[in-house]
């Protein structure tokens, strides 16, 4: 609630205190609390580093950066922020695409200083939440172990991933990364350090909680023996056939990993992983097409549309770049990919990265998977010349409370189906309005087909009530307010702040 005490005149307008710059006395208090050489930065070079996120569409400049190295640092920061009504934006890998980890004023709380594996008993690993998945893999590999399921982007941190989900190519069997956590250390928005585990309500709220209910500082994750993966791809001329084949082999549990990846809708590839030698790759009941047929169809299609021949050049260039990169001998051993995340992550950034990244995605039921893909492709074609679609399946474990208001819809299905729609800009620049129009059109497809969204940040907020209904959103917002009375933690990501109502 606004009072005279927390209002300030800024540019001639009344602004709530929470949006003003951090007062100098607060900076002084933070300095007194922290070693300024390491933990608190207010110099421009340190702040400029955090000016944008992976999407590079939203920009901001925090007043200060707290570089937390322990849960106590996080707790101190949150207590002070709660007292002074200072917004705190958490940041790990900084790979959000809608500005969720970009601070426009307030404190940017960088958690990457917490990057140690603390203990490992062979079945679980107790890690600090600022570890990137690359660091987790590096620490586990000498023990002959690997994480179970993590994002294909090795730069993501453990804490950020558990807050949003984390999808791997093996998620059809193991579920999302958030489902690999069995215990957490969390700092509440009011600065209490708590340890919670399976069965605790707070544990369920923090997982897939989009950073709204607390800051994860440590996590106990399931781990498993490290295995190499043989990877094959099968081409299709029709997206529906590919998706249906993926659903069939996932439901029959025939493969260790799989995903569908397209270039426009011209080349549709079902990528399948088997954790074992290529010679033992399982026979799969697939209805894929011969490569020659796929390329002949492409040739025929573009022969009838010679004004679009440039697209053939694009397809050929991508094919010639991607396949050798996927099977780079440096990462192969006996024909098997040694480090799938390293290979895929570097592929993603080299061939999908760019100065602007927009990846609207839908989480959809099995019944509407194909329809969502087809309608999404139509949206892509209306907005961009080149695009790619990445479709995966994610195993669900019953209807856990953590799935509420998340990308895992509450349906009886054993899996949820996810689709990312990524424009490939190929050097072209587009306005924010154009990107916004594209995202809205994709989200409208999800709304129409009863899906959910993987990302909630920024512009997604208007869709949350339409997707989940007022009752659920109000219930979660009430939980947020109870835990975070000053509404300081990662505000504006999911819920409207109090002064906006």
């Amino acid at each position, binding site marked *: 609630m606004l009072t005279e005490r927390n209002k300030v005149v800024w540019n001639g307008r009344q602004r709530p205190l929470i949006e003003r710059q951090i007062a100098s006395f607060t900076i002084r208090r933070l300095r007194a609390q922290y070693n300024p050489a390491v933990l608190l930065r207010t110099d*421009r*070079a340190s702040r400029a580093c955090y000016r944008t996120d992976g999407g*590079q569409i939203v920009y901001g400049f925090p007043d200060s950066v707290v570089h937390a190295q322990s849960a106590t640092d996080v707790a101190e920061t949150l207590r002070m922020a709660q007292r002074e009504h200072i917004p705190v934006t958490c940041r790990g890998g*900084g790979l959000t695409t809608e500005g969720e980890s970009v601070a426009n004023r307030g404190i940017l709380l960088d958690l990457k200083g917490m990057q140690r594996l603390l203990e490992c008993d062979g079945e679980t690993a107790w890690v600090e939440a600022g570890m990137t998945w690359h660091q987790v893999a590096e620490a586990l590999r000498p023990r002959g172990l690997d994480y179970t399921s993590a994002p294909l982007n090795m730069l993501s941190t453990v804490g950020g991933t558990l807050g949003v989900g984390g999808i791997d190519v093996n998620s059809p069997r193991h579920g999302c990364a958030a489902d690999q956590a069995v215990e957490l250390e969390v700092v509440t928005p009011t600065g209490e350090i708590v340890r919670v585990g399976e069965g605790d309500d707070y544990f369920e709220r923090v997982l897939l909680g989009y950073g709204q209910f607390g800051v994860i500082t440590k996590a106990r994750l399931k781990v498993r023996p490290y295995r190499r993966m043989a990877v094959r791809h099968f081409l299709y001329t029709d997206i529906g056939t590919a998706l249906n084949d993926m659903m069939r082999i996932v439901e029959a549990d025939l493969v260790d990993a799989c995903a569908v990846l397209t270039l426009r809708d011209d080349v549709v590839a079902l990528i399948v992983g088997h954790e074992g030698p290529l010679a033992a790759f399982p026979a799969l009941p697939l209805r894929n097409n011969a490569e020659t047929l796929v390329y002949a169809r492409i040739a025929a299609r573009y022969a009838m549309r010679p004004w679009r021949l440039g697209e053939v050049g694009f397809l050929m260039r991508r094919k010639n770049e991607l396949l050798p990169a996927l099977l780079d001998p440096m990462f192969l051993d006996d024909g098997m990919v040694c480090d799938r995340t390293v290979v895929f992550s570097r592929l993603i950034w080299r061939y999908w*990265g760019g100065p602007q990244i927009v990846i609207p995605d839908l989480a959809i039921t099995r019944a509407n998977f194909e329809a969502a893909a087809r309608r999404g492709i139509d949206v892509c074609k209306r907005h961009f010349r080149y695009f790619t679609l990445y479709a995966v399946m994610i195993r669900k474990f019953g209807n856990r409370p953590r799935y509420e208001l998340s990308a895992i819809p509450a349906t009886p299905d054993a899996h949820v189906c996810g689709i990312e729609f990524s424009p490939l800009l190929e050097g072209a620049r587009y306005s924010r309005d154009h990107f916004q129009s594209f995202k809205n059109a994709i989200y409208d497809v999800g709304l129409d087909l009863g899906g959910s969204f993987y990302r909630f940040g920024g512009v997604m907020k208007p869709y949350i009530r339409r997707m989940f209904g007022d009752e659920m959103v109000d219930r979660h917002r009430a939980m947020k307010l109870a835990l975070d009375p000053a509404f300081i933690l990662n505000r504006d990501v999911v819920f409207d702040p109090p002064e906006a109502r």
Partner: protein
Amino acid sequence: MSELNFGDCIGCGLCILGCPAYEETGFDPLTARGRNKALQSGLTASEMTEPIWACTMCGYCDAICPSEVHNVEIVLHLRRELAAVAAAPQTPSSSPAARDIVVGCTIRERAPHLIPSIEAFLARIGRPFKAAVAEGCCGSLDVEAGRSMPSRARAGVVADPICLEQYDAEFLGILAMQHLDLFDLRPPFYYFAPHRVVNRDHARAYPLYDRLRRRFGCDMNLDLNRLARSTAAGSVQGLSGEHSRDIRAAVERLLAHSRAERVITCSPADYLAFKAWSGRETLFITECLR
């Protein structure tokens, strides 16, 4: 700065994965991504002294960058801006072309006992040249500190990777990897591959060091990206003592998961660092000559 492509940085952060400054601090602004984002925000060299001096020139960021940003070149340029240096190359204090082997200041001044074994190795492979006793400083530290431009002189063999900043020459460690049968390399041991060479000349150097790893099953400082992790020992900071990172902590991090009692390397500064901080027997590669 217009010729420097920091504007191409897309902020993916792959560069931080093996950045020694990041490994030590976990602090983004000290990495290539941090510097590039600061430059994209219009900051000048004088506002970025700490990030500029955090770089140890290991070359990890250049090798992994999907946008092919020339991060090392950017740092060198910023250091020259800080030092306000005119773009004049500093040639080595003695003529390098006349000599076949440059052992470098670190070996000459801090580990001269290695010189006989280096000469013996070169003789065994048919390169029987002697290290010049009066060899002067090649000026690579000044180049790396931004106090002068590189001269790119020619020499036959260079024993210290940092001298490759000044010379076009073969590197002793690479020659050693090409003649593994000459060495007594009984496992288990930990091999510290010279990060400058592996990361900056990856296509040529990595397969040689990988072959060593596969043949002997030794632990190494190669990460999952097949790039070399480093200590700051062989950098201008480590060698001059200014702005230095915590070398002891880096040595401990690198050896954290290795049970090998013996460390072998072909990087002279790292040889001294491991000797000082690892608590394990440490050998320069030519000391393993059969």
